[in-house]
């Protein structure tokens, strides 16, 4: 049976600019109760929630951290609920704003 879990999301740098907020709580539907919610599916959920900006490009080059640890391969990580997940884009200092022009 599918059930719902809640995780908190942190958006840094370009992800913050694209979404316009630093954090939010997300409710996720877990289909496989044993494994949890696949981290590799989280980008799609975030994109659906925040359409109409170039967040997809930001997410493509960003890294995920879960509970303050950088994730090696999102395909190996499943969320059980209660985690703090961060979107960490590279900051280089020169990237023109990617959030405005679509």
């Amino acid at each position, binding site marked *: 049976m599918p059930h719902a879990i809640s995780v908190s999301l942190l958006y840094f740098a370009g992800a913050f600019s694209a979404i316009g907020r630093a954090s939010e709580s997300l409710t996720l539907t877990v289909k496989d109760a044993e494994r949890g919610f696949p981290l590799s599916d989280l980008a799609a959920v975030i994109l659906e929630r925040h359409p109409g900006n170039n967040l997809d490009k930001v997410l493509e080059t960003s890294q995920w951290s879960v509970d303050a*640890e950088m994730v090696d391969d999102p395909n190996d990580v499943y969320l059980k609920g209660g985690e703090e997940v961060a979107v960490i884009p590279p900051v*280089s200092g020169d990237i023109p704003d990617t959030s405005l022009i679509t």
Partner: protein
Amino acid sequence: MSTKLAKDDFRRYGRQLILPGFGRTGQEKLLNASVCVVGAGGLGCPALQYLAAAGIGRIGIVDHDTISLSNLQRQILYRDTQIGELKVEAARSAIQAINAGLKVDLYPCALDASNSQDILSGYDILLDCTDNAPTRYLLSDTAVALGKPLVSGAALRFDGQLATYNLGDGPCYRCLYPKPAARATMGSCEENGILGPVVGTIGTLQALEAIKILSGLHDGAPTLLIFSALTVPSFRSIKLRRRKPDCVACGQNGKRRDLIDQSDYVAFCGGENPDYERLGKEPGDPAHRISGKELHDTLAGGAHHIIDVRPSIEFEICSLPNSTNIPLPELLANPEAFEPKDDQPLFVVCRLGNDSQIAAKTLREFRPQTTVKDLIGGLRAWSHEVDSSFPIY
């Protein structure tokens, strides 16, 4: 032969000499150490200042640029009187004024694949204080090839990041960010803002990180420190994974030196940054674009509308009289919304004359009856050609 502390050094460095775990040994390590700071801008200035004051034996400074007025808000080693001077020379004077005994090597050039190993091989620690992605990847690859720790800082707007790469079995920059960040795909007149203390905080932390590594106080655990000035907590540490076994630079089959020779760093990061000021000044089709002088005369002549498509924060800084602000994203999202719907000529302006072209093209499609022109070179050109009292920012 390692250099020992001179008599005056005991007083000069007394406050750090007495620190547990630092002591005379730590100070002598700094005295015999060398650090190369790549980029003498907003990150490099505070980093250099603290490295110099702490008594690093030899400091290298790499930067090809000269000081401009818009640097002074955050590049704290430079003075009003030094505009136009080479940053490396002004930085050397500033840090030698703090600590006259410092050895300082200057490299008034841009770091590229042909010189990075020669310049950086003579230093114990490298500081990435640059502001662009291609140099970040080059620096990381060079640090891997030379086997040196790279203390990397970055800052933008209200945010910053700090990480030390290639330290012990920690990752390199490529392990963490295999793909460079996406670039805006369309011509943008917008520039990124930065607050001085934000970039200063990160630059200061870079100096601290270098001092910790050199004096033996660093625990070696790879972490990424994320600073967000506007959120609570402002600092978060993310534990980094180890070196990626399949990393093209530092992994088991990593190419190291060969990677530097084979890489086109600029192309990898999306190509040259367009010169938006020059692009905005291209005259284009006279039916679609108008010069500052011509616009000035036209405005005096008759009824018209002026639309300013800059972000509202920039519109508040300065604007043409009787102009209406519709930021470009809003205008593109809803091009029909602009009132009134009369047929008076429409003039579109922005900062440099790129965004205004995009806006004008869209407006023309929705108002085929109306004359729509945009200002060549934007409000910057207006200031140069028509009204020198109009601010340039």
